[in-house]
Structure formats: structure tokens, C-alpha cells
């Protein structure tokens, strides 16, 4: 008599004797983690593709095109932030802001997206940006390769939901991330999507025992989503300065609430 293969819990040895439950809780994380890796792999591929086009435009001296591609290209980076951040050297060369350098915008070590942003918007020129464009593409290729070979630590994945909210709270909410182009709301959306993805993947595992929590978090995500959506445009988002003071406050409060709530995700899943 054939048993449906779904009834088989394993291909290989699982030995259980006294009836105590197999580590169901832990094993339930495997699916979300695998799905997240897939999500990240897709976005990293897109990032590589878009960065290639963006840097091409920069090197070709096509300022308008480069400007148009800047914010959409960054979105994939901001979405995969929890994982990209694990490689702090690359994070530094790809995404550091001028603040982090002694000579600020003039510092030769200032590179990556924001260095190019500075050239495109503050100087309205691509002059001198060729080397930075090459470096950015090389760094993104490297990042892609490293992510492929990385086994995602479960705590980093689940903790990433909160980490992305911290990102928003620290720099996007104040318009400090993209201070030359003012395209912070694009980044905000990307961080938001990345955070919500993780939360959605693990939500089924915590719903039963945390109904109120899930309801609250769902509600908070909804408010942020709807508030941000007010600033959507045909090809993206309004510039940061269009964000009304009232909406900014609402977003700040909700983002902080989400950061606080999502900081308990790991604990709820028994992860360190």
C-alpha cells in the first residue's frame, strides 16, 4: 500500500521514540528562510541589472537618464539591506553618506551611490564620475557573488524586519539619506517592502499565539503603506520635500512603533 509521499517527513533518518514532538517550531522556519533567500536572490539580480544600466548612463554622460535611473536602482539595494549590511566593507563603499567622511563630499574615499548622486544633482554633471561608476558596478557584482554563497543566518533574516525599520527611522524619515536628489521616499518604500516581506513570511508561525500582536502590526504596516501611497507618482515617488509635516509625523510615529514591535519577532520565534 502506498502512502502519499507528503506523509513522509524526511528522506532520511528521523528517529523518534517516546513520542515527544520533533522540533516542529524550528523546522517551520526552513520554508520562510528558503523563500526569503529566493526573494533576496531575485532582488540582487535585479540590482545588478539596474546598476549596470545606471553606471552605463553615468559613463556615457547622459545626466538625464542617470538621474532617472538613480532612485529605482537603489530600491533593490534598500530592500536587501539586512543581508547586504552583513558585508560592511561593501555597504560602506556602496551606500555611505558624506557624513561618514572627514572631508565630507570632498573626501576621496566618499564613493558609491551617494557620491554619484552628489555629482549628478549638486554639480549637475557626470564629470569625474566614471571611476565611481566602475567601482559601484564592481562592488554590486561582488555583493551578488557573496550573497549567493552566504548561508543566511536565521536571526539576521528575522531581525531584518526590525533592522529595516530602524533604517527608516534613522535616515529616511528625515530626508538625510538622499540629500542631493531628495528621493528618500523611494528608499523608504524599499525598506518598507523588505521589512514587510520578512514579517509576512513568518506571520503564519506566530499568528496563533500572538493574535493581538499580529493585528496591531498589520494595522501599523497598513497606515505606513497608505500614507506613503499618497506620494506615489507615475514612475515612482514625490521628492522628499513634498512630504507634509503632518504625514511626516504620522510616519515617524508608526515607523518607531513598527521598529519596537518587530524587535520582538526573534524572541517570539525562539531565535537568539
Amino acid at each position: 500500500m502506498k502512502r502519499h509521499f507528503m506523509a513522509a517527513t524526511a528522506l532520511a533518518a528521523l528517529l523518534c521514540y517516546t513520542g515527544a514532538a520533533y522540533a516542529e517550531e524550528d523546522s517551520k522556519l526552513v520554508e520562510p528562510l528558503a523563500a526569503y533567500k529566493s526573494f533576496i536572490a531575485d532582488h540582487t539580480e535585479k540590482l545588478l541589472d539596474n546598476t549596470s544600466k545606471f553606471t552605463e548612463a553615468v559613463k556615457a554622460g547622459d545626466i538625464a537618464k542617470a538621474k532617472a535611473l538613480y532612485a529605482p536602482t537603489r530600491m533593490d539595494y534598500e530592500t536587501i539591506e539586512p543581508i547586504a549590511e552583513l558585508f560592511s566593507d561593501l555597504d560602506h563603499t556602496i551606500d555611505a553618506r558624506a557624513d561618514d567622511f572627514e572631508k565630507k563630499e570632498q573626501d576621496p574615499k566618499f564613493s558609491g551611490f551617494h557620491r554619484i548622486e552628489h555629482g549628478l544633482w549638486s554639480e549637475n554633471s557626470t564629470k569625474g564620475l566614471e571611476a565611481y561608476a566602475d567601482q559601484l558596478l564592481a562592488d554590486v557584482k561582488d555583493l551578488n557573488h557573496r550573497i549567493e554563497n552566504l548561508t543566511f543566518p536565521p536571526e539576521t533574516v528575522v531581525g531584518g524586519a526590525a533592522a529595516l525599520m530602524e533604517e527608516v527611522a534613522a535616515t529616511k524619515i528625515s530626508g538625510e539619506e538622499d540629500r542631493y536628489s531628495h528621493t528618500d521616499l523611494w528608499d523608504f518604500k524599499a525598506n518598507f517592502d523588505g521589512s514587510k516581506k520578512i514579517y509576512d513570511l513568518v506571520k503564519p508561525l506566530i499568528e496563533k499565539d500572538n493574535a493581538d500582536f499580529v493585528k496591531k502590526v498589520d494595522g501599523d504596516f497598513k497606515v505606513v503603506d497608505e500614507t506613503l501611497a499618497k506620494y506615489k507618482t507615475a514612475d515612482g515617488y514625490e521628492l522628499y520635500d513634498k512630504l507634509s509635516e503632518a504625514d511626516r509625523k504620522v510616519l515617524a510615529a508608526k515607523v518607531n512603533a513598527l521598529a519596537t514591535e518587530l524587535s520582538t519577532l526573534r524572541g517570539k520565534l525562539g531565535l537568539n
Partner: protein
Amino acid sequence: MAHDHKTETSAVDSVDASRRTLLLGLGVAAGGALASSLPVKAETGDGKQVTDAPESHIADVKQRVPFYGVHQAGIVTPRPANGMIVSFDVIAETPADFDLMLRKLTERIVFLTQGGIPPVLDRKLPPSDSGILGPEILPDNLTITVGLGNSMFETRPWLNPLKPRCLQRMTQFKNDALDAELCHGDLSLQFCANTADTNIHALRDILKNLPEYLVPRWKQEGNVPTVLPEPDGTVHSARNFLGFRDGSANPHSGDDALMDEIVWIGGKDHDEHEWAVGGTYQAVRIIRNFVERWDRTPLGEQERIIGRRKMSGAPMDAAKESDTPDYAKDPDGKVTRLDAHIRLANPRTAETRKNLILRRPFNYSNGVTKNGQLDQGLLFIAYQSDLEKGFIAVQTRLDGEPLEEYIKPIGGGYFFVLPGAREAGDYLGRKLAEAAAAGPPTRS
């Protein structure tokens, strides 16, 4: 005697020495280093450690720290509740000006730290004193410590050859986001007192009296909580704004031999200029803490990042703050992570003993940043006889630590603290001024 900067009280009884416990041990300050197995110093005098929490029941306006001595006060002096670092640009274009400035500065410091009554002037004139402490200036445990920065020596050819060997311009570490307006300086003044008002009063006094010499660049105030000792007399290290005990493993500031080894320039093997004997290097770092993010981090993770238990301050493998972690038994970092803050700062090996520094920090709380988060952090201050082997070596080891997610150094500078003024008639920096005035540089 070299270490005469124990707290004296004129009207308050000395605290019973038996009520205090020396804490030699393990601890952490954001960006600080820790002692390896240090000799336990037998109690002498009141034996207070610099990073003990000040005892609120003892603090008194009448407490006075002596000014004269081989070393300046405010380094191994027990730390009171309030501190402030102010950095200045100095206007002194000749050795003569420099000498005059040092004399005047010393004069003010003596008055402020020993106490006295400011002169009462004619009403038609501005008052001689700000008046914020009233008609009589009481010492209130005040110390004012003077240091000279790299730029002081670099821009003056008559000082340049006399520059201390390790003194340099503070350069960026990997996690730094240095704000030029919060960095460096020709001269630093460290004010410490029981109350913030005493420090503020002292600063305003010095500015009023030396306006042609000193122009403020940046300042940062800070404080540490005052704590009552335990019933058994144990005093603990004060906590920082991450909620962790800070200073558990500081070298014992009451141990003269240890301070000679770690902090003071001197001894037979020193390779500094003669004028520098009795001085020390001061590393100041303004380190922002991302407190909201920290407060949202699971306790277990906080402890793993730091390498200690939060409430007790004990290392992960021991029971008390004063216990030493046993890293030899934990080579893979299963108990205390290999990248835990305390382990990176002080790996506790024979070689890293030469990297010990004396930390004497304060917590600061400024305003609110643009993104609605609190601007709080650590005013980190460390003293060592060799800047390269001390702070710079330690901070280099800390590069890349997980704690970096939560902290961001934004300012500070390196300074050389002048030796003490020996007795009345002597003044801070006299030997340096004399060497500068003596003309062509001779390395002593």
C-alpha cells in the same frame, strides 16, 4: 608624594575606608580598553576608583582637590558626578605670550579649584564673577585639567620641536563620522565637579579672564549617576547610556605603580622631552549612542555584543563584575563571543597588557536630532602614557565590532596633558614655556 589627589574634605568626615571595596575587574566602556589580570592594590587612603559611581551622600561643596603636585588633578582623582571637555583655539604667537597665558590660566585654576571670594567691584563695572555660585566660590570637588593639542605644536615653529612623541591629529577610524566642528583643538580643558554649575562657572570665569588667548571650539558636558554604596560598602562602576556598567576593568587608579606604568610619562625609559615628564596623553571621543535602536534590541543580544551581563556587569562565565573572564578556556568564543566588545578591547593576553588605558568617561545627553531621535552618548576620555599603544591600538582592535551598529564617534581629539605644577610659584607648562623661550630646539 606623587598621588596626593585623593579627595580631601575639610568639613565632611572621610568615608570609612572599610566601607569601600576595590573593584579590580572587568568592564566595558564604549570604545574603551580593559585591564588584564592586574595586581590588586591594597587599600591606601580612600582607594576610590575613577569609574566608581560617585557617592551622592558624600558629595559636598566643601570637598577640595589639591592643585599642586607632580601630576595635574582630574586624572586619577576619583570622578565626581559632572564633567565637561572644552576645546579651544589658542591665540599665542610668541613664547612670551604662551608663557603669560599659562601663568594666567594656572592662576584662575588655582582660584576656582581651591575656592575663594571673587573681588567685589564698583557697580559701574561688570562684576568680576558671573555670580552663578553666589558670593563665595566653594571648591565642590572641582578639577581643571589642561591639555595641548597637535595643532598647538604644528602651527608654531617655536613649539614644534618640543611636540610630544605620539601626539597627532585624530584621524578617522572605520566607523567614525567625524564632524569637523566637534574635533581637535589647540588646547583642551577638562572640568570635573560635583555639580554642573561649578563646571559652568569655572568655564565662564576662564573665558572672561583669558579672552585674548582662548577661543572656544567645541564643548561637551556629561555626567554619571551617583549611587549609594551597597550595605556591605561595595561601590559599583557607574552605568553608561546603554545601561551597562562602564569601567569594570579599568586599571586601578589608586595603584601608584600601575599608574606610573600605564598613565604617566616618566621613569627611566621614557623617550619624551623632559618638559613632558609627569604628563600624559588624553584621548577624547564624543561617541553618539543610537539609544532607541539599542533599547529595541533583545537583552541577550545586548549582552552578547558587549560581552557582559547587563545588570550585574559580570562576565558571561562568572558571577561578579569584578571577576575576570577566562578566555583561555573559551578559544572559540562560545561563552564570550570573539567579537564581543570587551574581548576585542582587551584580549587579556601578555602582549595586550601594554595597551591598557585609564578611562574616565561621562554620559552626555544633548538634544533631538533631525530624525526625531535622541542625541545621547558617551563623552569618552582616556589617559595613557603612549597614545599609539594605548587608545589607538585598542580602537583599532575594535574596528568592525557588532557594537558599531549602535554607536557613532562624531568628535573629539588627542591632547597632551601638561605635567603638574609642583608648588606655589610654579605654573602649568612652565618647563615647556621655558624650553620654547630658550630658542633652538634641543631634544632633552
